[in-house]
């Protein structure tokens, strides 16, 4: 048997717009796949096709070996899906809604209660079970959405921006929940938060303009950044020659790059080929040579930078 999820040359056109343009990838059990891309890249559209909501204009998506269009029911049974924005029935209570989901997922009698209780425990919904969903805060609504997605302990979990709009505590909780479930499952989540990818995902896919541009691990992605572990040295113009020479002496002249200058300040960006941590070396040298420093920063651009670099050109057209 192939991978749990097999997506081949998937395409979706809305009239003249090509939202997804030939995306292919496989995902195996145990993987947490982060789905990145600028707004309108086609992330949600890909997920909607993968979960059987939208029929593809071309290509195939298979879940557990079941084609999502020709063998939809079998595929859908394997999937738990949190659609973008977590749509829910506003008039229902979480209790009624989750019981409905449990029944439609095939549980009966006492099992329904047991599944609902279990999932309510996991996402901490006890306090709001009898309140109409429309009166819940955004965070609780998102948790109800998450609860319905994981209720049947699905083998494939597809989450479209699961932490969007949550406060930092709730983000943390949701991430913990996802991490606790990753074993033996396929989890695909889309997000605009790059730390989330670093914290959660074993693999990253970036799509832009409907096309897949990167498919690698978060570490590999970060390593693509020239900023990785680079140090930015801010000094007055008068110092630039002396400090520049000294840095070139330490790391080689290729390692030092002069960035755009503003007014009387000069910024030098120092990075090593192997991208090792060099802050302490530089600060020691600065002390011993008594540089007039205006600032010394380790660059944290990393994933953001790579993301921007990879997706900007496609967004422009």
């Amino acid at each position, binding site marked *: 048997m192939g991978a749990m999820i097999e997506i081949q040359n998937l395409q979706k056109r809305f009239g003249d717009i090509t939202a997804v343009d030939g995306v292919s990838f496989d995902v195996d059990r145990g993987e947490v796949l982060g789905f990145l891309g600028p707004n309108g890249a086609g992330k949600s559209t890909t997920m909607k096709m993968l*979960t059987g*909501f939208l029929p593809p204009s071309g290509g195939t998506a298979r879940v557990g070996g079941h084609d999502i269009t020709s063998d939809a*029911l079998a595929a859908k049974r394997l*999937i738990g899906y949190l659609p973008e*924005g977590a*749509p*829910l029935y506003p008039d229902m209570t979480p209790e009624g809604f989750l019981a*409905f989901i449990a029944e*439609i997922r095939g549980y009966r009698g006492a099992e329904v209660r047991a599944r609902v209780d279990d999932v309510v425990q996991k996402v901490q919904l006890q306090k709001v079970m009898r309140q109409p969903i429309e009166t819940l805060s955004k965070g609780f609504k998102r948790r109800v959405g998450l609860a*319905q997605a994981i209720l049947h302990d699905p083998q494939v979990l597809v989450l479209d921006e699961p932490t969007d709009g949550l406060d930092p505590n709730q983000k943390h909780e949701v991430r913990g929940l996802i991490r606790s479930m990753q074993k033996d499952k396929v989890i695909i989540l889309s997000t605009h938060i790059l730390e989330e990818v670093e914290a959660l995902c074993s693999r990253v896919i970036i799509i832009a303009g409907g096309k897949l541009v990167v498919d690698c691990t978060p570490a590999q992605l970060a390593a693509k950044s020239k900023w990785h572990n680079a140090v930015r040295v801010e000094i007055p113009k008068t110092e630039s020659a002396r400090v520049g020479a000294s840095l070139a002496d330490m790391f080689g002249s290729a390692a030092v790059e002069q960035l755009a200058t503003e007014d009387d300040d000069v910024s030098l960006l120092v990075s090593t080929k192997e991208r090792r941590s060099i802050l302490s070396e530089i600060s020691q040298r600065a002390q011993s040579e008594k540089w007039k420093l205006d600032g010394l920063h380790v660059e944290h651009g990393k994933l953001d930078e790579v993301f921007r670099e990879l997706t900007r050109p496609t967004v422009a057209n």
Partner: protein
Amino acid sequence: MRSTLVLLKRELTGYFATPVAYVFICIFLLLCGILTFYLGSFYENGQATLGPAFFEFHPILYIVLIPAISMRLWAEERKQGTIELLMTLPVTLPQLVISKFAAAWIFAGIALALTFPLWLTVNYLGDPDNGVIVASYIASWLMAGGYLALGACISAITKNQVIAFVLAVIVSLCFLIPGLPQVAGFLESTLHSETLVEVVRSFSFMTHFGAISRGVIDLRDLIFFASLIGVFLFMNAIVIELKKAD
């Protein structure tokens, strides 16, 4: 089948989760009463029957009341985005279409059944043919199903419930008017063909409801309403398949 029942249960309890259902039932009963007693001259009739006074107004009553039920069926689902949730559950499109329709139809049946005090009244006042009354109730409910299937299909076209309501009223009127006695003369003078007039009239709720409500159960009338429901539900499924992404 089980999935259909689960979906149906959710839909049906949904009606009673908000006051809307109770308001609807009250208005329905109120209008039934007003039409029967004032316009239908229930007392002057002198006959102990629900026939002309009560059932005669149902085709017109349903023109506005049934679209009020059907307008939200799909429009709301699409507006809220819950259709995405629904259609990624392990259920089929026919199951969804049928369960929504069936729940609405049962709800309409409940409203209709709650007019039973009128039935008791005629039995108290006289000695009506209860067989005819039962037949009329069934006919009325079947006709409500026709209006509902039509309204459900229209509700799938738009995300806006008001538009769904207005369109359903207009299309329902198109199915009502050709059968009205008032337009019979007009039809004959414009179509110049007896067969054409018959064809046009045969598409009207009025034509098929009239006979059954008088206690004459003709298989053709039952088949008319049943196939009307079937055709509109089939179209409903197609419309959903085409429009769900918008």
